[in-house]
């Protein structure tokens, strides 16, 4: 019998997806809000279950691998899924009351792609998983009422189309790169790629493969879709889109670069270095000029990706552990920040500084949450983002990239300007609309959970860090 142990979580998730689909058929109109809660509960349950089952080992004749590294990403996707379901349930219920089932099923499918991918040890399986994740995201991004010409969905088709075009082009580029790699090595198994000698052709193949993944994580120079898509799509979905696919993209990058081409680091390190330096630079620079907060956070996310890539650049267990910690901190921080924006303007997809102006008067709790998220993004002590930045800097030091630490720190000062601009508007300016903000209960709960995690991970990072380090060590065997 085939050993499907490493795929247990994914198989259960697949089953749950069809379960939600059937429940959707059975639920009458007007009661479909329950689907969002159901999704959240099922994902949370699966997250708990993931602590009690053994998913280590190898499956599908070595094409699939389960270990602590893979499990980290699976859990990460599940947590992101729980947060987004609770954060978006009210939005989905109000705007697409009859099509909630489709929304949640698509969400579960994209999550399935995310849980599957990190374990893929074959280039083709990797790309299939990428598409399983990517296509539902496109549909979710363009989710809007067809009659909706002025509402929050007015730009959603455009956003979805951009995501679709970029996504398909990037897949094509990746495939092209993979075909070159296959031509050189004669195999698609990651474990067998290591024997390829460093050659100009390998450089080309890697460059193409990396370009495709660069699109997914939204790194410069493949970032053009990010701000447009974020701006046009519904905010709760952006909270998910800005975090979860990035983690999966990093899992894919780590699989190709570290499992496949660890010995050819000389060929890919300059590419990674170029991408991360330009991402940090242009992300921060463009964020400075943004008036739309979702675009601002989009550019800040581009810069954050650059910082995360420092972990990848070091290509050792130490650096990858730091990368995982960074992504985990980024999950709670960035999702929280977007969800606060959503709570402030639940019926619009365009959110500007005017919306958060005087937020501390309108909702002290949301203002405090937003402040903590911004401080975390900026990397100020006592919140998780500080440790995240610090740890990647430490990893860079260890790997000998002292100048990169200096560069990263200087760019972090630039980032302060725009993060402070939001905090300033929220706390130091008078509201344009003094009405207190009413927040949907489950959305409020997610924001508070994110805030609590940002603080807890900020005050006591040790256990989380150790978890991340253990996961990273698994990647290196």
């Amino acid at each position, binding site marked *: 019998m085939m050993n499907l142990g490493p795929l247990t979580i994914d198989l259960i998730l697949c089953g749950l997806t069809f379960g939600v689909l059937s429940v959707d058929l059975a639920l009458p109109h007007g009661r479909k809000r329950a689907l969002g809660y159901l999704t959240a509960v099922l994902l949370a349950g699966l997250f708990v279950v993931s602590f009690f089952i053994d998913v280590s080992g190898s499956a599908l004749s070595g094409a699939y691998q389960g270990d602590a590294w893979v499990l980290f990403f699976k859990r990460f996707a599940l947590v992101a899924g729980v947060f987004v379901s609770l954060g978006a349930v009210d939005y989905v219920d109000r705007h697409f009351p009859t099509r909630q089932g489709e929304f949640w099923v698509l969400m579960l499918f994209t999550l399935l792609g995310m849980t599957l991918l990190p374990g893929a040890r074959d280039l083709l399986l990797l790309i299939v998983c990428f598409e399983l994740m990517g296509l539902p995201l496109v549909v979710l991004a363009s989710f809007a009422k067809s009659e909706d010409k002025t509402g929050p969905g007015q730009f959603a088709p455009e956003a979805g189309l951009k995501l679709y075009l970029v996504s398909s082009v990037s897949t094509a580029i990746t495939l092209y790169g993979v075909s070159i790699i296959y031509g050189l090595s004669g195999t698609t198994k990651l474990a067998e790629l290591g024997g390829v000698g460093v050659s100009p052709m390998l450089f080309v193949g890697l460059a193409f493969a990396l370009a495709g993944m660069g699109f997914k994580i939204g790194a410069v120079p493949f970032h053009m879709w990010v701000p447009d898509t974020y701006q046009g799509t519904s905010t709760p979905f952006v909270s998910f889109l800005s975090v979860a696919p990035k983690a999966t993209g990093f899992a894919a990058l780590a699989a190709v670069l570290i499992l496949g081409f660890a010995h050819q680091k000389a060929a890919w390190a300059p590419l990674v270095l170029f991408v991360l330096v330009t991402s940090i630079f242009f992300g921060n620079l463009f964020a400075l000029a943004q008036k739309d907060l979702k675009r601002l956070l989009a550019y800040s996310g581009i810069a954050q990706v650059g910082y995360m890539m420092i972990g990848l650049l070091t290509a050792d267990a130490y650096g990858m552990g730091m990368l995982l910690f960074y992504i985990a901190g980024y999950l709670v921080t960035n999702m929280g920040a977007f969800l606060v924006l959503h709570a402030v303007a639940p019926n619009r997809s365009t959110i500007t500084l005017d919306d958060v102006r005087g937020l501390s008067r309108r909702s002290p709790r949301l203002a405090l949450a937003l402040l903590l998220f911004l401080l975390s993004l900026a990397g100020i002590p006592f919140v998780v983002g*500080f440790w995240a930045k610090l740890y990647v800097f430490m990893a860079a030091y260890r790997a000998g990239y002292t100048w990169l630490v200096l560069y990263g720190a200087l760019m972090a*000062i630039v980032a302060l300007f725009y993060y402070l601009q939001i905090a300033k508007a929220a706390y130091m300016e008078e509201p344009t609309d003094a009405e207190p903000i009413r927040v949907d209960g489950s959305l409020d709960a997610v924001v508070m959970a994110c805030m609590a995690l940002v603080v807890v991970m900020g005050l006591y990072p*040790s256990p989380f860090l150790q978890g991340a380090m253990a996961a990273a060590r698994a990647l290196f065997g």
Partner: protein
Amino acid sequence: MADLLNVIVYLPALGALLLASLPPLEHRNLKATAIAVTTLNFLLSLILWSAWSPAHAGFQFETNVGWIQSFGIRYHTGVDGLSFYLILLTTFLVPVTLLGAWNAVETRVREFVIAILVLESGMLGAFVALDLFLFYVFWEAMLIPMYFVIGVWGGQRRVYAAVKFFIFTMAGSLLMLIAILYVANVPTGWDFSWASAVSRNFDPTLQAWLFGAFMLAFAIKVPMFPVHTWLPDAHTEAPTAGSVILAGVLLKLGIYGFVRFAYPMFPQAAIAYAPIIGGLAVAGIIYGAVAAWVQPDMKKLVAYSSVSHLGFCVLGVAAVTVEGMTGAVYQCLAHGISTGGLFILVGVLYERRHTRLLSDYGGLARKVPVFATFLVFTALASAGLPTLSGFPGEFMILLGTFTAASPLDQIVNVPGLGGIRMAQVLTVLGATGVILAAVYLLWMVQKVLFGPLQDPANERIADLSVREIAVMLPLAALMIVLGLFPGIFLKGIEPSVQRLVTTVHQKAGQTYQADAGAKRLNWLPAGPGARPALQRPLRIDPNRLRLAPGRFDALRPEDIRRPPTP
């Protein structure tokens, strides 16, 4: 007693939590609660003082437990003579300030007192931290509440001032973080402890870079000329309580950073660059004083006076002598009390007339005699009148700068002038700062209190209330105590400073003789046995320092290079 120290550090933060969780309260009750918490904290620190042994040069009341073990980050706290009195100053100033600003803040009072309490915890934490990392964390933690204090409750241009304050400080501290990481990156892993950082010897070139990074962070905080530009804005726009805490304690953290971290960790660089630091300090003294003189705005005047007074502290530190450094720490205390008092008095006027312009006042002495008495008294203390608090510190600093034991005592060739004795020139120029201080402070006193009473609005101005007198009385008393009985504090400061100065000189490969009257340069290389800690040969190139020939007849390059180890 170590526990008591930790309680003192976290009590304000706990008070802030308490205030945050209380149901809606009247403003009076919120302020009263905050004052009660901080007063209790002050009383606790007095208890700590009774257990404190001043003659002990090392750390007392230490706590040392693991925090983030995998990175060698420990929760290590303790106090010595350098930090202890600054802690007392902090716990004393905060309740006094809150009482002084009773009426100054009427909006969002709960947030205001929470910010002040968190700020107090941050400052105290930075003073007690003996782990580089812990220090950095507290150092940054002070930033956010202060940012809000300026930005939310400040004056007209508060947001600009707050952002400028934040960016300046953050820029400096990020560079410091990089240097901290560099220092902590030891071959066996990470080690952030202060003790191990101080016990190591870095290559002189490396030292220069690391010292530069630390110095920049601290110099911005002090603030030293020419990175002082955030201070006048921040001070002027901050509410009274913010200004008092900023001037009273926050700036001192810069000086404290010099003496606790930058100097003992990078002694060779500290001594090699002493002339530059001393020169900038004197530039700050004179620039700050002249700038203060021409300010039409009282608060700005006091702000620039801080630039000048803190210049003295930097000069004392740069001298690396026991007198100079003791004077610097003492001047920190004195300046905290007197400038705090000045800011409170300016705030009193502002609350009554809503203007800070000198030209709007005049002739107040007859209308508000009690206020006038306190203003004259505080101004004189700030100007360094003997018998008042400003005098002993400045005197010791100038003395310590003048002595031959200082690395400032070199002959520098100035084109056109020939060789000049740096220490003497710096001392003379620094001393003019004392005169200038008298000029601008008395100028302010004269403009506000004396002359004809022109503005009719000043006719109805009220004198100090009982509350305000209650605030000013302890400050005035301390100005006298600090002026007449400096020994109370000096006996605790000196042993630690002595230890620090000896360490710095020893690690830099010199013997330091505290004999200030020595005519000859005592700054001589010791025999190999006297400096076992020095790992690498000391490279001092007399040509680069532009020393005049003949002056160092006893000192030749081959003397400085450490003899090869057998």
